[in-house]
């Protein structure tokens, strides 16, 4: 039962990571590329690390619970910090005067 949940989380995390990678490669400019880099990587790593934390709980001993709690802490910090870092990078781009990409009128 636990394995199914873990596999589900891992696969969905992988889907988000793939989407993020495709987005970084295919989107046209700085800001749009930061969008998948910030959002998809956060959600993807969140799901994957959660899957690792769940997988670690197989025998449910006290030590494993402690380790899983530490892994959940990692999830928490990724959740807070990755969007903040993206925000800081975008902020620097705006302040440096980079114009967002628009569709040219033809």
């Amino acid at each position: 039962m636990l394995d199914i949940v873990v596999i589900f989380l891992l696969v969905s995390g992988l889907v988000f990571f793939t989407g993020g990678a495709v987005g970084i490669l295919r989107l046209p400019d700085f800001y749009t590329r930061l969008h998948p880099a910030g959002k998809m990587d956060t959600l993807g790593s969140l799901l994957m690390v959660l899957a690792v934390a769940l997988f670690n709980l197989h025998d449910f001993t006290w030590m494993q619970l402690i380790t899983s709690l530490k892994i959940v802490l990692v999830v928490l910090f990724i959740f807070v910090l990755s969007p903040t870092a993206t925000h800081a990078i975008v902020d620097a781009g705006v302040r440096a005067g980079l114009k967002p990409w628009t569709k040219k009128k033809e």
Partner: protein
Amino acid sequence: MKTAGLIIVILAGAILLYATQDFPPWGAPDSPASTHVSPRYLQKSMEETAVPNVVTSVLADYRGFDTMFETSVIFCAGIGCFALLRIFRKKPEDRYYRHIATEITLHIKGGRIPEKSSEFERIDALWTPYDLIIKTVCRILVPFIQLFALYVIAHGHHSPGGGFQGGVILGASMILIAISYNMRTAIARISEKTDNLLMATGVFIYAGIGTLCLILGANFLDYSGLSTILFSGPIMARSHGIFGVEIGVGITVMAVMISIYNNLASEGKQDEGL
């Protein structure tokens, strides 16, 4: 010239690749790396020092001299950066102040420095408005980073980590304050004088523990001599001695990181920058 360089590079690379054939296979039991002294460390480390992490026991106990002078090297790097970069300027420079209520910026050219007041706030020449998100997240995060750094220092006996790594994380937490606020805020937390004193304190703690062993009748940096003052057996005394040494290393590394960052980012003025 380019072709000559290319030929030399290819030749040197080919010779290096040829020489790798004489290396023992990876993990071979009869290779020099795993025959002389390393099996002894691997087998005896736990019963001699009560430290499960062999890397820590080799680094801080068996090879204690090496680590002590490594710490001194880091200390010298900090002092070198200080001596090369630090500028003590006598005449006052241009300063920028911002009226907090109206957000009007004043530019004061030389002359008399205004007194501190709660209405005006000194800002950098390249000032950008503080970002609320970054500021808040960094403020919340810094205690956790420092807690983790202390964990890394204290847990070096059991897991990867130790004084060097923990010290760098501690220094990074202070650098994060300097980046997310400004340098004056970080220097108000740890002043330059404190920082430079801490640099020397770490090396002093390391060498002091070594000398303490000498005073108590053991060899220099032989922590088993500390058992009389630590009220524990010689094996646990070695474990505690390693911990004390790691604290010294951590303090030095932290202070040197902060000092190098402050001197580099502010071009030696320790005033404003980044």
